[in-house]
């Protein structure tokens, strides 16, 4: 299953500068594991030690924030597009 993954500027050092890569997975969790196998270290920037999505990283499947679709359990279909954007936030 080929899923296009759009990579934000700040994480492109993990993908050799590529702004878009391909990965496989039927769920966001397995996709992230596949991404990490291809681009070591990327998972650590997306998922915390307790196994949940990092609070200040937004992940979207097509145009939906996965916080509303089951987070790491979000299901993926062939042709879906995943976008990763670090949250813009501060105090």
């Amino acid at each position, binding site marked *: 299953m080929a899923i296009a993954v759009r990579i934000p500027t700040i994480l492109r050092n993990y993908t050799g500068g590529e702004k878009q890569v391909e990965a496989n997975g039927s769920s966001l969790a397995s996709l992230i594991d596949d991404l990490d196998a291809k681009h070591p270290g990327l998972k650590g920037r997306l998922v915390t030690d307790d196994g949940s999505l990092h609070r200040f990283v937004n992940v*979207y499947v097509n*145009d939906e924030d996965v916080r509303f679709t089951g987070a790491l359990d979000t299901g993926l279909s062939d042709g879906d597009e995943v976008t990763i954007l670090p949250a*813009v936030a501060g105090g």
Partner: protein
Amino acid sequence: MLTIPRALYDKIVAHARADHPDEACGVIAGPAGSDRPERFIAMMNAERSPTFYRFDSAEQFRVWREMDDNDEEPVVIYHSHTATEAYPSRTDISLASEPDAHYVLVSTRDPEETEFRSFRIVDDVVTEEEIRISETVGGEA
């Protein structure tokens, strides 16, 4: 150095004043690689807080996709502090995620005087920079 048209400088200040005492936030997009802020985009502060801001995630998706489609990038990311100085907080520094952006901080703590400063934040290092306000036409696309 940040070079910014007067009209866009004024829009940032007006937005900060309008949202006070909540923090205001937004982006100015410009052609990728140009370092020219051209297109002003006020963003909603999803936190609606006097001490924290966060771009609404759906709005951020839409704006970032639009910039990508337009071959633009976020040249300025601005937000306001409503009771403290116009300097990046520890949170601002740790969450800065656009290494090529100019981070503009505005303080509305004084009702008469607005503080307006600009910084680069790369790898947790803050460097203040000079601001040149250009008196040429500029504004929203």
